[in-house]
């Protein structure tokens, strides 16, 4: 390094010791992210009049739709847990569990979407893509507060791989948005289900990992300089 001894460095570190507040508990951060998603859904519902259709029997009558809802919920929760836990050294088992559950649920959810597509509804791809883009964009808008909160939490921590953590934050937040969109959307097309709902977390994770990583870098406290 610089040629100084480890003991000299230790003395320098000891002299530079401003008090720090321990990072918030994971469950507190997770609850905040989830709450912000709910707030975003309520605010959007209040502005547009579109509310989750959990009270409608028809929503629960389609097993594929219910399976996709469950898959998205688990994928979103898993990705958010992986993102937040990656900010804290020593929480790797939780990060792994988050990734495994998010990955399996995303694959399951996409599998359900593909199954629905294979089930054969005749739809026009162009109109489907247009509708899917709307749902995708809607989910992303709903994801913004949660993504920002998760990124801020990660910036306070010490992630080993910032890009992976930010990808998980993007995927998890978009997953929460997709849950709300899925619960609100009345479109029945299977392609739409796949493109507009099931693939949202993965697409958002890939698209927004880099911008969020930059944001996390900017928000990170100044590094110790020796």
């Amino acid at each position, binding site marked *: 390094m610089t040629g100084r001894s*480890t003991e000299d460095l230790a003395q320098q*570190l000891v002299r530079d*010791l401003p008090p720090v*507040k321990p990072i918030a508990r994971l469950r507190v951060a997770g609850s905040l992210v989830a709450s912000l998603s709910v707030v975003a859904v309520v605010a959007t519902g209040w502005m547009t009049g579109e509310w989750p259709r959990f009270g409608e029997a028809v929503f629960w009558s389609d097993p594929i739709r219910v399976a996709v809802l469950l898959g998205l919920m688990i994928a979103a929760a898993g990705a958010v847990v992986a993102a937040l836990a990656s900010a804290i050294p020593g929480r790797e088992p939780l990060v792994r569990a988050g990734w495994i559950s998010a990955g399996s649920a995303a694959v399951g959810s996409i599998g359900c979407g593909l199954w629905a597509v294979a089930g054969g509804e005749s739809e026009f791809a162009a109109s489907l893509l247009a509708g899917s883009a709307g749902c995708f964009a809607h989910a992303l808008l709903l994801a913004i507060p949660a993504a920002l909160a998760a990124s801020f939490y990660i910036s306070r921590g*010490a992630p*080993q791989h910032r890009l992976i953590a930010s990808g998980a934050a993007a995927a998890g937040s978009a997953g929460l948005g997709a849950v709300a969109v899925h619960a609100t959307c009345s479109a029945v097309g299977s392609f739409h289900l796949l493109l507009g709902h099931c693939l949202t977390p993965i697409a958002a994770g890939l698209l927004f990992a880099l911008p969020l990583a930059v944001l996390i870098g900017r928000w990170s406290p100044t590094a110790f300089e020796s």
Partner: protein
Amino acid sequence: MGDERETRWRTWMVAAQAGETPAYEKLVAELIPYLRRFVQRRLLNAAAAEDVVQNILISIHRARGTFRPERRFSPWLHTIARNAIIDQTRQHARRLRREVSLEADGVAEPSSDPVEPLRPRLSPELEGALSALPDSQRQAVELIHLHGYSIAEAAAQVGATKAALKVRAHRGYRAMRAHIEALRPEENGG
């Protein structure tokens, strides 16, 4: 890690988070020999072990806010230490690749030292170009291009901003190229 030591280190870290210097001093003093053993057991490149221990101490210092008082200290410490070892291993591999690349270009001589050198041995003309640089530029080039440090790490070492260090390294690199090109007129058609 023994329960008694675990409790002691956790208590000291919690006190350090509150800014209590004596507790932090005791913690660091006990951590240094522990980390030396930890790193030496895991690192093939023994020459770099002390650097890794220093990196771990800096990481612990920077990340001390991520330790939660109700959690165990050892998993937190070991993760930071392992990550530093992984970083060092990657950096070492990058440096070796660069050495091989320099040798293939005919500008560096292969090292014959039994212990890994801190930076690749350069050809006389590269050494000449490097030594002709102003101190600040030479330091930047050495840290980034020869030692394999990231911009952030190198900037932290010399106490400069990342942008300033990038500029110094870039100017140094350009000046070195000009120096070498001036020594090789026949290759440049001049």
